[in-house]
């Protein structure tokens, strides 16, 4: 009795697995966006750091891009980019360049290293 019950159950579970794979596979093909063909490239950004944070607030690139940030600040401080663990001294009135190879995907806060205040965020999407 128990055996037949579980044999029937095994059959149903196998059917369930097959249907699930078909349904999910079909749905995936329908919903998946076309992959952008853009090649990895040079991505320049001009960033302005003021009292209320960084402008623009988000630096968004794709994996493999080379990011060059030209940063101006209203105060002297050390900028820290998480994940990539970059540190850069900034002086008011000067434009400082900070470049990085975006080989790490994720959402990385950029903060004032002294106050640990989050100023903006570096977003690296997978290609």
């Amino acid at each position, binding site marked *: 009795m*128990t055996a037949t*019950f*579980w044999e029937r*159950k095994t059959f*149903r579970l196998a*059917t*369930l697995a097959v*249907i*699930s794979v078909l*349904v*999910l596979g079909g*749905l*995936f093909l329908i*919903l*998946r*966006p076309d992959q952008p063909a853009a090649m990895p490239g040079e991505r320049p950004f001009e960033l302005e750091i003021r009292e209320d944070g960084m402008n623009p607030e988000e630096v968004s690139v794709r*994996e493999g891009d080379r990011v060059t940030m030209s940063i101006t600040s209203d105060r002297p401080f050390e900028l820290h980019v*998480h*994940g990539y663990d970059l540190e850069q001294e900034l002086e008011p009135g000067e434009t400082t360049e900070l470049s990085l190879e975006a*080989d*790490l*995907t*994720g*959402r*990385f*806060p950029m903060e004032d290293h002294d106050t*640990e205040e989050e100023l903006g*965020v570096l*977003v*690296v*999407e*997978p290609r």
Partner: protein
Amino acid sequence: MPALARRAAAASVAVLLWSVPALADARPSLAHGFGQRYDLPVPLWLYLYGAAGAVLLSFVVFGLFVGERGAAHGYPRLNLLRFGFFRVTMASRAFVSGLRLASVALFVLVILTGLLGDQTPVLNLAPTIVWVIWWVGFSLFVALAGNLWAIVNPLKVVFEWADGLVRRLGVDEGLESDAPYPASWDVWPALALFFVFVWVELVFPGSATPRNIAFFILLYCSVTWAGMSLFGKEAWLRKGEAFSVFFSILARFAPTEVRVKGGKACEECDACESESEDEDCVNCYGCFVRATPGERELNLRPPAVGLLRSGGTSGGRLAFVVFMLASVTYDGLLATPLWVSGMFYLQSAAGSFGALGRLFYGTLGLVAVPLLFFGLYAGFVKLCQVMGGGAGFWGLAGAFAYSLVPIALAYQAAHYYTLLILEGQNLFALASDPFGWGWDLFGTGGYEVNVNVVGAAFVWYSQVALIVAGHVVAVYLAHAVALREAPSPKLALRGQLPMVALMVLYTVTSLWILSQPVVE
């Protein structure tokens, strides 16, 4: 006669009182560097895909099992103790004693590093062990492998050692008093303590500070040992020890169980998964230890079947499960932009009150979200009752609660596994330098975390896959519960619809949280 027990309880309370003033010294830690997460939010299309997949698969499960009569009471089991290999390893005294000793050693080390070590969270062993390895890693281990906590629980082991020592010194009654545990307390003490634990995790700003961790552990030790002295060790482990209750719920998902053949060993035991007294006693470690070797089984079983056994679902246990489900969601919700801006508006409207205000609003959320969750759950259970009939409201509420556990578990795994992989690496450096004093015991003191282990695309797909899989298991469990509880299969089919709707809601909420950027 229970004079010694009372004195042991008093000593525990003394430990408690001693650690309270020390806690007042708690300063908010700089969370910087500890528990920092770099996960990208799941993209919108994948979120929609997961949600649509969950709904569609609900109907697949539904359609496949229509008309099935009566849920199985048995399930395939394989007794590992039949194999000599497992008898001489996992079931041997030496192996178990070794595990227990290692557990207590680590426990003592965590308290010492917390009290004496460097107070920077990433440089100290305590925060990584407690929050990453134990809370995230060990929880997943219990759910995916089996209830190791029942064996290695250091609070239990230390109490047993102390009790044995006292008996050897000639005090026959040991440390345990024979006062009965008040039946009306149910598992409410465990829930209250678990609430405090989750509050420390999610609301208390100094939760990553090593010294605070050590103090909270000592505080919890004193409460637990007082409880064990006053009401007996087993009673307190079943009803008052928050983590024993918590892990026993997670272990219902696990593909292993311990079982005592025949219900005799298991009188008055309401912690085990059995549904009636004449059944075998499942996953009750107190009974397992007392049983004769011939009665014992250590079984492999299909995962999640333990959640079908609703044995001992009292009001308190129902509240515990609902709080568990809600607190997992609250954890993720706290870091979503919606919650953060909502809190910002609430604080600008009602006043922010500085640091104390943050504590207040955090606590408010930790109370309100589970209450809201319970309200929703009760509403959907009521619908199930109206549509399907069967057991009374509370019977149904108790029966369906465990079927939601796989969704919470899947979310917890999806939400935290990257943290486990990344922050877990800190263990290499910490093993060489547990106190943060610059030691290099094993030559790994300089190990730096490799952030580039899993790519964002892999994380997205695995997160959505986990959530959808958890949902399917939950819908299947709800179906089996409905068949068991409803008077006829036809009514069961109608009666489970509202529960499936609630599951879709819960699953989509989990997915939505994962699709939001983490703002902390």
